């Protein structure tokens, strides 16, 4: 299954290949930030404030004279970490809820579905804002808020897949052969859900990176002075007229990262669902 997903015509798709490269660059950038960044991202130098992009500062400096290029590089750490970890957590909760609900049905399913429906009925960002305010802002809070909001769509997706899979012959065969429910779920059903889960996950990473940035933009994210793209964009608002680069570059970095994840998820989906392919 994994081979089919990765060794397949997706990689003949040029855009998808490019997006993989871009994501790899971002990951390297995040991991090697201290080696790549030309300046200390938090070093304030008021004499050097609001310098336009040039040879000394590739992306210019912000209102406190910090090097924007270095801060954009460090910002990748927060964005990627939250994007990936929140996806993993939402995936974990959502997959378990979807598997259990879809497989056992009945009252368990009805209960899980009700919680799913309620979560999905909230305006997602407002709910995330609410949770963030309650838990007081910070890295862990953002992570918890995003996964608590994001698991529901995963659960719904997995549940649908499980319901269609559990009537298949090989599941029947497993049941007839006396396998336990847990074994059937994890041996037979879960592996067949993995393709759609992976596609949804790659789209989710992009969505979570955006949501993290939105929270940071509203000053509800990881606390400054830690560089986050969202907060950098918001800090540049005041100087939009005189120093637009403060806002411009973190936004470009953010948009490109999300774009790459969405492109990849899209290509994977087209590949798995040939009905949509042109």
């Amino acid at each position, binding site marked *: 299954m994994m081979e089919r997903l990765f060794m397949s015509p997706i990689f003949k798709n040029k855009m998808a290949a490019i997006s993989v490269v871009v994501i790899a660059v971002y990951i390297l950038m995040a991991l090697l930030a201290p080696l790549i960044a030309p300046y200390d991202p938090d070093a304030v130098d008021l004499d050097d404030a609001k310098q336009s992009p040039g040879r000394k500062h590739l992306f210019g400096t912000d209102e406190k004279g910090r090097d924007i290029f270095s801060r954009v590089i460090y910002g990748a750490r927060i964005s990627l970490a939250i994007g990936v970890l929140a996806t993993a957590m939402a995936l974990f909760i959502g997959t378990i809820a979807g598997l259990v609900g879809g497989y056992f049905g009945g009252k368990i399913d009805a209960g899980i579905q*009700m*919680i799913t*429906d*309620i979560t999905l*009925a*909230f*305006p*997602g*960002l*407002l*709910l995330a*804002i*609410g*949770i963030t*305010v*309650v838990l*007081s802002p910070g890295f862990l809070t953002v992570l918890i808020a995003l996964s608590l909001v994001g698991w529901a769509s995963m659960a719904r997706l997995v549940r649908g897949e499980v319901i269609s899979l559990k009537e298949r012959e090989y599941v029947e065969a497993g049941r007839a052969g006396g396998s336990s429910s847990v074994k059937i779920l994890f041996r037979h059903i879960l592996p067949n859900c993995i393709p759609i889960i992976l596609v949804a996950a790659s789209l989710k990473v*992009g969505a979570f990176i*955006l949501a993290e*940035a*939105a929270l940071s*933009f*509203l000053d509800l994210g990881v606390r400054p002075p830690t560089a986050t793209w*969202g907060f950098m*964009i*918001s800090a*540049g*608002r005041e100087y*939009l*007229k005189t120093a*637009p680069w403060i*806002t*411009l570059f973190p*936004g470009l970095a*953010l*948009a490109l990262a*999300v*774009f790459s994840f*969405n*492109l990849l998820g*899209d290509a994977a989906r087209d590949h798995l669902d040939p*009905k*949509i392919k*042109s």
Partner: protein
Amino acid sequence: MISYIVKRILLAIPTLLGITLITFLLVKNIPGDPSSALVGERTSPEVIERNRIRFGLDQPVLIQYCKFLRNISFLKIPTIEKLKVGDISIPWISIFKRPYLGRSYFTGQPIGRMILDKLPNTIRLALGAMLIAIIFGLALGILSAVYPGTIWDRLASFLAIGGISIPVFWAGLILILIFSYYLGWFPASGMGGGALIFLVLPAVTLGSRSAAYLARITRAGMLEVSGEDYITTARAKGLSRNRVIFRHVFRNALIPIVTLAGLDFGSYLNGAVLTETIFSWDGVGRLAMNAILQRDYPVIIGCVMLGAMVFIAANIVVDISYAFIDPRIKFNKT
């Protein structure tokens, strides 16, 4: 039809209750006491205590929740009232009341009034955004479905993924930078007393995301329908290309498109929080944001519940509108 609508609304009640419970619990647990936030940290304990009693914050949580539910509900214990028509008074049973959402801790105004005051502005923004989403979304989607695999298709797909990927708040700022600071075409913020030109940038900002989604769904739906036998039949009959595209393909692809347009309208309040903050648009989104910053609990509750209710209502309307578009869907088969 009517029984279907009633059933659909009844099914939404447990969800609504769940929403009120979660909202209530969240708001209860927000750190910091609103009564001290209101009068300042240095006020005497007696004043703070008086405020706590005034807002009912000294009672057990369960009682607070029940009171809260009673306040926000439309229904009440039935009472017999008399309706006077001229000289005759007719007795009737009244079960409806005006919901009471509480008062802002800060301004003392009733929440219902505050939200109703701001709501028209947000609806105006949402309608503008929806118009933009539908025009650009459908145009892009149809274009790429009609010419699949061409440069148009690639461009449309690229724009569609771009629209989903670009952060709303950043896009808004860049639009301000280009169209208002550099080109001077549109005002950067405010509402200009309702002048349409003030609506353009916020509506584009809020609508771009939906436009991108709509374009993708339109394309996918139309391509799927294109492969059906009845489309081949329509072509074979010698119908004109445009007639096949719009009468047969587009019409049958309409269901997912309507779903998405409807559901997206329900989620505009999300984007409105960011869009209204950037453009100083005096709507519910900005009200919610300010309330969160000031810990104005009742206002936060009001805004979040409004968002959830709009979303649920949008769901119901979408479900019902299915049947009008697609006669194959019967109301009794839910």
